[in-house]
């Protein structure tokens, strides 16, 4: 009955924090657990107490259920212990993520997190992005704006790009898309890729859109190889003025614009990428096509 004792130990230890009544049980459970790991008999009777408590409560409701629980109590205890172990591990990871990244999902939670933003930061629902700065594409006479804070080096932003392009194809004549390059400092070449995207943007959408797609598609390559690859990707775009692009890239021309986006994002509480703002709503991390489409539709109806 070691399993029942382990469960009891954890449960009563937590409950014991709040009530002295449970501390005695926790002590009993610990004694039982300690004996068990020393291959001695758990002689506290705690296992019987727990079994009696559970079965007694179940018996008036359903005798067959009580009989099953009584018969397979050890097995059920084992299952609960495993579930508890797994959930404890997840809880611990969640707590660490909350401390380190400000949310429970962490780096793998469908969004790339900014590790330089203080933990506990949330997006302020009362603030909206501005049209002052960003890489826009879509309708000239737009009714709705979809703002995206994304990072070219973020795999989730790259993954979400297909959704963005689908929406662009569908609503490009009614909606303006404003992409705000928001580098994740911990990612390799995140700032450099932001600068280069601005250099492509200044050469017009016929250069910017393919360069943008190439950045997302070849993310692993330039993150590995660095500036040379960022430039060679630009060189491969049809119609690009490469000399101008290269000069732009090395001039540091868009450092201020990039920092302006960063400051805007920090002000809004954007702690991860991608983040979308549509009307009054915002979406953090990987967001489905349907969710974004619905939000656009709602805004279009207004």
């Amino acid at each position, binding site marked *: 009955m070691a399993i029942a004792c382990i469960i009891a130990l954890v449960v009563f230890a937590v409950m014991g924090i709040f009530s002295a009544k449970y501390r005695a049980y926790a002590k009993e459970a610990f004694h039982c657990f300690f004996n068990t790991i020393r291959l001695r008999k758990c002689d506290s*009777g705690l296992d*019987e*107490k727990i*079994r*009696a*408590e559970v*079965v*007694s*409560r179940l*018996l*008036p409701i359903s*005798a067959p259920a*009580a*009989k099953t629980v*009584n*018969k397979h109590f050890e097995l059920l205890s084992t299952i609960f212990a495993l579930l508890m172990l797994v959930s404890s591990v997840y809880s611990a990871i969640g707590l660490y993520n909350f401390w380190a990244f400000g949310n429970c999902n962490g780096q793998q939670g469908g969004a790339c997190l900014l590790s330089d933003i203080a933990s506990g930061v949330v997006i302020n629902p009362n603030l909206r992005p501005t049209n002052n700065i960003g890489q826009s594409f879509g309708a000239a006479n737009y009714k709705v704006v979809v703002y995206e804070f994304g990072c070219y080096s973020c795999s989730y932003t790259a993954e979400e790009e297909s959704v963005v392009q689908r929406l662009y194809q569908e609503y490009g004549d009614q909606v303006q898309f404003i992409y705000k390059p928001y580098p994740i400092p911990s990612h390799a070449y995140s700032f450099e890729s932001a600068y280069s995207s601005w250099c492509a943007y200044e050469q017009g959408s016929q250069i910017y859109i393919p360069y943008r797609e190439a950045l997302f598609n070849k993310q692993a390559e330039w993150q590995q190889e660095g500036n040379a690859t960022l430039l060679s990707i630009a060189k491969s775009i049809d119609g690009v003025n490469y000399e101008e692009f290269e000069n732009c890239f090395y001039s540091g021309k868009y450092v201020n614009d990039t920092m302006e986006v960063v400051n805007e994002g920090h002000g809004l509480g954007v702690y991860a990428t991608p983040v979308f703002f549509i009307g009054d709503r915002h979406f953090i991390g990987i967001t489905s096509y349907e969710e974004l489409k619905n939000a656009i539709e709602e805004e279009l109806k207004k």
Partner: protein
Amino acid sequence: MLSEKLREDFPIIQKYKDVIYLDNACTTLKPQVVIDAVKAYYEEYGGCAGRSAHRLSRLVDEKIVEGRKRIADFLGAKAENIVYTKNCSEAINLVAKSFDFSKRKKVVGTILEHHSSMLPFEIKALRKEIELVYAKPLPDGTFDVEQYKELIDRDTALVAVHHTNNTLGTKNPVREIAKIAHENGAQILVDAAQGVPHSEIKFQDMDADYLTFSGHKMLGPTGIGALVAKAERLEEMPPFLVGGDTIEQVKTDSIVWAKPPRKFEAGIQHYSGIIGLGAAAEYLKKIGMRNIEEHEKELGKVAFELLSSEQKLKIYGPREAGKRTGIFTFNVRGITPHQVAMMLDKMKGIAVRSGVFCAQPGMDFMGACDGAVRASFYLYNTKTEIEVFADTLKKVVQIA
């Protein structure tokens, strides 16, 4: 059956209406008269008996004399036969320690003895000071007199047996055993911890040399019991514990012991307990021990009739109603005794005992090595309570 009105005498029953107390073989609840008697010592008397000459001391002395007389009357003994002890265990230890085993060394007990009446002799046997043999019960837990005839012989110094068994409630034929013992020149000690509270016992008629019991099992206070012994036995035995009040005269080179029972009652006694025990004896006497015994037998019969057909229930002890008393010991197949006891408590507030009942060799002998569950009835239990107990136990059996 006794009137349910007497339940009003027990404050605990009035306080815990949702509890069905069936752990009477362990200890009993106390009626208000006993509680009042105990309180009275602290509130009204206060002094110490038999020593000081002041008024309060004399008052306590009167109450102690009265209490001893009440116990003596209750047991058909004389006041000088009563030696107060703290419980039945101490009374048995007194005999085991003070008995003269120099001429004969054989002690006959039973395998079903309570540890209190087994260990004082077993420890001597392990030290090779005595030879200890055990009578074995018949399959139904009762004892055949013929077996005692075989075991008790001219080498036997003492026969130490129970009056009523604490695991099964069965009774030993103590009068016949006493006769066999005396015919062989042996003496007999009767552990009546479960006998005095539930049966009419007349010490002189029983012809036992020693009889022991505890107060708390017969509605009295805890911490008080007694050894009842024939006058000549108390005369010949040296004191067990010595100290204040056990002597007539002390010099640095000689001691003259006091007359029994004083020589066995060292130091200030448990006055409130003695007074409370007297009140308990008086209370039981008013109801009548035969009525109490019949009441318990009837409750035992009800329990047995309601539960004996349960296939997954192992009931220990005799199946004949006439041999059963108010102790109902059982096991539910596949469920530990402690779990059964806890479930009865959780489901209907039924208080029973689980374990080996301080009689491990006996339980092992009966094949209940992991213990059993014991429901034990007393004068304040009702037929309805036994029906609730049986009904709840049937539900517990469903999960087996």
